[in-house]
C-alpha cells in the first residue's frame, strides 16, 4: 500500500504528475494552480522525471505547445486556472477536435471582472462545451485519484479525447489534508505506455494535422467526436473498477450520499459537497430523509444514471458555484434536462453560492434543506433561482 501524507491539493497533483512522468509539459503558472508547476518544475530540475518542460509566454501558447507535443506522439500534461483557461479557450477546441488526449488539471477559480483569485467553477463551466472530458474532485485525494485515472480515460482507444481534472482553488489547492499516495511502480503499471494514433514524429508515415474541413465533412467529424464522448461513461467505470483494485477506493460517475430512500436531494460539486454531507447527517438524525448527489463526471454528463439516482426524490435543490447570467446555473440545466428526459417531474430550485471563493457554510446548507422541506410540504416553489450567502 502507499503512504499517507499531509499535503496541499496542489502538492497532490504535482506528485501524481511526477508518478505519471509525462513526455511533455507546457505550462504558464497562474494562481491558484501555480504550486503545481512550481513543484513539478523542481521534479524536472532534480531529474525525478524525464519530462520536457516547456516554459511559454501565455496559456494560449501553453495549450498550443501541448497540442503540438501530443500530435507529435507524446503523453502531455499541463495545469491552469481561471483566466489561464479562458486564454486557452480556442486551443481547447483544437485539442479535442484533433482528438489529442492531453490531460490538464484545472484548479477552479472565478473569472474576472471584478478580478478575484479564489475558487468557483466559472472557469470549468465556461469550458464545458469545448469537447473535453471533465472530472470534478471534492478533495486532494479525489483530485490525485482522478488525475491518474484521467490518463487512462483520455488515452483509451475508443475515446482519444483531452480531459481536465477540476478541484477547488484555495479551499483544496492550498489546504493541507491527509491523503494516501500509491507507490510509484503501481501508478506506472496502471497508466501503461502511451500509444499515439498518428504521431507526427513517425517520419516514415507522414500525416497532416489540422486541415481545412468544409461543410461537406465538418458535421461528420463532429458526429465522430460525439461518438467518442458517448464511450467515456463506460470507460470511466471500467478504469474506476481497475483503480479500486490498486487503491481500495471506489469511484463512479457520481457519488450518492444517503440518497436511496431520500425525499429531498441536494446536487452539489466539489468541496462544498463535504460541508453539505455533514449537515445532511444532522437532518437525518432528526428524521428528515435528505440525501446528496455529487457529480464526478460532468462532461460527458451521465443523464440517465443521474435521473435514475434521483427518480424517487420529491424535491431537488441544485447548488451552482457558477453563474450563467441570464440563465440557470450550469448544473441546474443538466439536472433539469436529466429529469425531464427521464419523464420525472420533481420540484426543483437553483441556488447560486460561493462565487469568488465565498465560503459555503453549514448554515447555508441548513437553510437550503429547510427551504426544500417547505417546498415538499406545500408543493410550491417560491423562487426558482436565487443566490445564497449574499448580503442584501
Amino acid at each position: 500500500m502507499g503512504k499517507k501524507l499531509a499535503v496541499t491539493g496542489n502538492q497532490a497533483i504535482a506528485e501524481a504528475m511526477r508518478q505519471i512522468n509525462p513526455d511533455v509539459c507546457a505550462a504558464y503558472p497562474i494562481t491558484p494552480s501555480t504550486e503545481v508547476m512550481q513543484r513539478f518544475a523542481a521534479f524536472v530540475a532534480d531529474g525525478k522525471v524525464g519530462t520536457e518542460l516547456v516554459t511559454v509566454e501565455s496559456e494560449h501558447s501553453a495549450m498550443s505547445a501541448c497540442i503540438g507535443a501530443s500530435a507529435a506522439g507524446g503523453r502531455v500534461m499541463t495545469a491552469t486556472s481561471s483566466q489561464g483557461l479562458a486564454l486557452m479557450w480556442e486551443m481547447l477546441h483544437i485539442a479535442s477536435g484533433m482528438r489529442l488526449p492531453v490531460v490538464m488539471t484545472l484548479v477552479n477559480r472565478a473569472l474576472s471582472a471584478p478580478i478575484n483569485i479564489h475558487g468557483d467553477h466559472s472557469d470549468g463551466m465556461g469550458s464545458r462545451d469545448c469537447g473535453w472530458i471533465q472530472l470534478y474532485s471534492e478533495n486532494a485525494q479525489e483530485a490525485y485519484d482522478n488525475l491518474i485515472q484521467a490518463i487512462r480515460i483520455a488515452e483509451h482507444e475508443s475515446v482519444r479525447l483531452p480531459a481536465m481534472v477540476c478541484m477547488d482553488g484555495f479551499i483544496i489547492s492550498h489546504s493541507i489534508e491527509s491523503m494516501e499516495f500509491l507507490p510509484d511502480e503501481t501508478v506506472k503499471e496502471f497508466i501503461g505506455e502511451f500509444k499515439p494514433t498518428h504521431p507526427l514524429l513517425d517520419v516514415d508515415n507522414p500525416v497532416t494535422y489540422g486541415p481545412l474541413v468544409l461543410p461537406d465533412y465538418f458535421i461528420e467529424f463532429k458526429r465522430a467526436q460525439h461518438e467518442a464522448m458517448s464511450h467515456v461513461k463506460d470507460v470511466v467505470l471500467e478504469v474506476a473498477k481497475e483503480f479500486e483494485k490498486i487503491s481500495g477506493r471506489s469511484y463512479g460517475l457520481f457519488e450518492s450520499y444517503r440518497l436511496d430512500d431520500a425525499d429531498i436531494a441536494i446536487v452539489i460539486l466539489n468541496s462544498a459537497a463535504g460541508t453539505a454531507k455533514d449537515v445532511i447527517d444532522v437532518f437525518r438524525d432528526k428524521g428528515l430523509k435528505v440525501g446528496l448527489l455529487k457529480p464526478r463526471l460532468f462532461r460527458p454528463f451521465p443523464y440517465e444514471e443521474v435521473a435514475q439516482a434521483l427518480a424517487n426524490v420529491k424535491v431537488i435543490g441544485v447548488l451552482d458555484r457558477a453563474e450563467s447570467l441570464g440563465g440557470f446555473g450550469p448544473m441546474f440545466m443538466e439536472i433539469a434536462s436529466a429529469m425531464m428526459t427521464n419523464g420525472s417531474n420533481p420540484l426543483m430550485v437553483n441556488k447560486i453560492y460561493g462565487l469568488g471563493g465565498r465560503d459555503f457554510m453549514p448554515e447555508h446548507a441548513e437553510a437550503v434543506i429547510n427551504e426544500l422541506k417547505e417546498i415538499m410540504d406545500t408543493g410550491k416553489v417560491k423562487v426558482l433561482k436565487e443566490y445564497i450567502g449574499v448580503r442584501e
Partner: protein
Amino acid sequence: MKLKGWKELEIGAVIPEPGNADNYNTGSWRAFRPQWIEDNCIQCLFCWIYCPDSAVTVKDGKRGEFDYDHCKGCGICANECPGKKGNKAIVMVEEGK
C-alpha cells in the same frame, strides 16, 4: 467522388496520405478562367512563380497549359504577366462565356 460517412473518417481529421490534395478538384470554385495567348508569351515564367496553386504547368523550362482542375481563377498570373510589347499573354475570361 463518393463522400464518406462519419464512421469511415480518420480520427481528428488527420490526413494519413501525403500529397492527396491533388485529388481535390478546386477548379470548380473558379468564376474567371485564365486564358493563355501563346503568341504574346515571352516565357518569363512569372505566372509559374506567382500562381498560389501551382496551376501553371512547366515542362523543360517552358510553360504549358493551365491545370484547370486546380486553378481557382484568382487572376494573379494575368496581373503579373508582362506579355509582349504591352500585349498580355494571359487574360481572364468569365466562366460560362
